[in-house]
């Protein structure tokens, strides 16, 4: 191993950096700049926070001031919605109205002399498909099935034919606007046991007419 003999006469403090950027100057400057940068960033962050906080306070104040008016408007909106719904329902009812009058007026021409109507009954609509658990603005069923039942009696040799003719007439094209389906329910033509019938033979009959659907639209 060769002996090392570096008798260096330069002092530590005389050694200079050849780099164009002096690190011992640059590092403190960078650190100061970084500190100032972070300080400025925090300052602007604080300013932003203060501004947002002010805005929020202002917003809360305005909200407080506007709250009664807003609630009134909300209430009015609700009422308006309700009324509008009511109007809509009425409009729907109006549009879904079925013309019974004309049909009933024209039925007598198909009634033979041996037929007597004893009852003309509009059957109640079926109940809603689901239970209403809360109030709904508007109809729960948009479609409603209606029907009416003609009850009467007939007599004579062609009593059943007369009833049949009436049924056919009700099934005819003249009534398709109202009557969707007309039929005699099972066992609906049967002898009438009436003590006041003075031994005459009467048959009781029923014709059920299912009307077109009422569409509440």
């Amino acid at each position, binding site marked *: 191993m060769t002996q090392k*003999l570096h008798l260096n*006469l*330069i002092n530590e403090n005389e050694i200079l950096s050849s780099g164009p950027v002096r690190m011992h100057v640059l590092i403190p400057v960078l650190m100061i700049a970084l500190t100032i940068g972070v300080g400025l960033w925090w300052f602007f962050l604080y300013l932003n926070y203060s501004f947002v906080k002010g805005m929020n306070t202002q917003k809360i104040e305005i909200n407080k001031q506007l709250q009664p008016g807003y609630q009134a408007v909300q209430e009015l909106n609700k009422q308006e919605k309700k009324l509008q719904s009511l109007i809509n329902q009425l409009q729907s009812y109006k549009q879904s109205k079925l013309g019974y009058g004309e049909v009933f007026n024209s039925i007598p021409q198909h009634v033979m002399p041996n037929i007597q109507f004893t009852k003309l009954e509009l059957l109640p609509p079926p109940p809603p498909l689901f239970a209403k658990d809360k109030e709904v603005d508007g109809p729960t069923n948009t479609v409603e099935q209606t029907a009416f039942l003609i009850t009467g009696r007939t007599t004579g040799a062609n009593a059943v034919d007369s009833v049949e003719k009436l049924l056919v007439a009700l099934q005819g094209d003249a009534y398709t606007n109202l009557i969707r389906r007309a039929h005699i329910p099972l066992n609906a033509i049967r002898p009438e046991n009436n003590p006041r019938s003075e031994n005459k033979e009467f048959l009781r009959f029923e014709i059920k007419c299912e009307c077109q659907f009422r569409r509440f639209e």
Partner: protein
Amino acid sequence: MNLNFKDILKKRGSAGPKDVVALEIGADLAQGIPVVRLDIAKKQTRLLAAGFVKFDDRLPTTPEEAAKSDVYWSLPKQFQASKAAIAVTSPFAILRQTSDVGEADKSSAKMRKVSAVTDRQHPPLIATMPDFMAAWIAARFPQGRRPTTRSIQTSMSAAINCFCSGPVPQSSDNPAIVVFCFKSYSAIAAFFENRLILYREHPIGYQNIRYAICREMRIDSEMAETLLNDPVVDLSAALTPVLTPLFRQVDISADYVSRRKNCEINHFHIYGISSGIKYWSNMFVKVVGKPLNHLHPFGGILCNRKKLSLPESFDKDAPLFTSAIGAARALLEDL
């Protein structure tokens, strides 16, 4: 946590490439100031540039003169490494082997001293230089430009480093005496087991050889230089009175080392001779009785001549780079 920017700077500096430039100032050579640039790549020292530059390298002799001087040095592009090592040749830059630390401090100026114990049985080697001079040299390469000074050594200690870093001590640890021949003086260094155990200076340099020829033959210095390399002319008669005292000193030093270390010295080397080598060799054999081996300062350094633009007189003037090479290698090893 304490942040010491100087430490950070130092660590950062040590992580950089090992690339240094070295120059010998104050040598007063006709060719100029010898400058070499070396680097280390894969543990191999490489020569990047070598040549002579010319600028005012006169050293101040008083603190007042140093304070007044505002000269700055700059090197050509090929020599602009980041770190510079400076070898100083000056009557004020002294290298001594002495146990008396105060001995070298003869002037009234404040002296800067660095010592190294090379062998426990021998006095330490002390390098001294006036404080104002070292400070002045350190500031000649300004901050923020390449290079800046990292090392200031005396030319003698730099030359010794040239030998220590060279191939001879790397390959063997035989006792050896090395003669470093400078312009106006020579230094004799004895090595035992590759440790420097003796250092002496003798006031005979290669200039004295030329003066002797000029005086004897009444010719000018250039002619003397030509004759030194002329195989036809025999200048032994003129050179004997000059070289014999120097070689006697070498012989005395060899005798001293032989007796102190109980060994025989068979290896004698010389640095710094660019002309008249045959006279040195022949006369050495006559006086000491052993062969004198001429060492090349660029020994052990990878030198790609095809890629480098070396001066035309590079081969002839190579011995003049001894101190610069030694200064560069010492700094390279410290990085």
